[in-house]
């Protein structure tokens, strides 16, 4: 069920292959130590690694190194737990992942996780199975597009994504209301996406 060629995908959509099974089915194959457990682990990584990376980006202030550490630790914890039969509800692997993300992020923010990170690394093949979100957009293209946006749009995006401004801080800087910051952000992101082509 889980056998897939070892190659990189831009997402967990696998070109030319039929749906390899639900998350629960894949988790069950790993937990049972099935013949194709290794390929099922790879498939689970394809499905969940980027979600954990995304969680890390959001909660570790866009530090891509820390986000990668978090994602790999979380995936390893999930795989180890499945192999050891410690995941009680195989229908809700997503909940296990999210809970583990929260715990690991909490530890990392307290500076505890670095000590164990080297022990919890995915193989290069598994970790490289899915292109990380941060490698999917070319930085220079974004810089060029930011330069073409209305100044207010570019300023807002830098305030929010670079300086970590709150809605109130961004509003004060742009002489508008916190409620309007969301509206302005949606418009600025739409313009940027249009320019970058993502």
């Amino acid at each position, binding site marked *: 069920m889980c056998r897939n060629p070892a190659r990189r995908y831009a*997402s*967990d*959509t696998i070109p030319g292959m039929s749906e390899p099974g639900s998350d629960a089915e894949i988790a069950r194959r790993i937990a049972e130590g099935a013949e194709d457990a290794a390929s099922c682990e790879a498939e689970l990584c394809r*499905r*969940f690694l*980027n*979600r954990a*990376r*995304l*969680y890390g*980006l*959001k909660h570790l202030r*866009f530090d*891509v190194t820390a986000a990668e550490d978090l994602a790999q630790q979380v995936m390893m914890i999930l795989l180890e737990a499945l192999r050891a039969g410690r995941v009680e509800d195989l229908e809700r692997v*997503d*909940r296990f*992942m*999210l809970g583990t993300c929260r715990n690991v992020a909490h530890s990392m923010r307290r500076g505890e996780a670095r000590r164990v990170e080297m022990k919890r690394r995915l193989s290069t093949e598994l970790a490289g199975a899915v292109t990380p*979100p*941060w*490698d*999917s*957009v*070319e*930085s*220079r*293209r*974004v*810089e060029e597009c*930011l*330069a073409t946006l209305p*100044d*207010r749009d*570019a*300023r807002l*995006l*830098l305030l*929010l*994504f*670079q*300086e*970590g401004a*709150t*809605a109130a801080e961004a509003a004060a800087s742009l002489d508008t209301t916190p409620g309007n*910051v*969301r509206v302005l*952000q*949606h418009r600025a*992101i739409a313009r*940027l*996406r249009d320019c*970058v082509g*993502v």
Partner: protein
Amino acid sequence: MTEHVSSDGFADYLAGLLDPRADDELEAHLFSCRSCALEAEKLAGLAVAVHRAVPPVLTAGRFEELEREGRIAAVNAVLPGRIAEARFPPAEKLLVLRLGGSDLSRARRVDMELLDLDGKVLARFDDVPFDVARGEVLVVCQSHFADLFPPDMVFRLERLVGDTREEANRYTVLHALR
């Protein structure tokens, strides 16, 4: 949350504009929904690129970050009324021009124009970050700018004091081509 999340919702999430409960709900959905996860990845890639982007004018905080990351090849102090010489930085590195010597103590806003030596406006940047105490603006020069702008240029700073717009200073910079 069972409904799919809109792109705007993900953008708000990544920008930290949602309240903690909405964050939690969105995350629970994100981990259970593959199509939403894929859409969120696209926005995350964009958000990281914005986070890493080097704007043409830096805040003091961003300047310090870039220095810590080792991305700044050189910092040139440029004073008004003098012709400064600069060298385009190597690829992936940055040259920072400290446009100093301006009285910005009463400015509520500073705008900047980039001119060629004949006075033609090449680019305009409104409401740029500025350092009141040091009276300076930190401009970034990147290697690929050599393909976008002429090597010799003038930076013109305007300050808004109350409702009055006035020129603060002009800075002439001659760039050697690598």
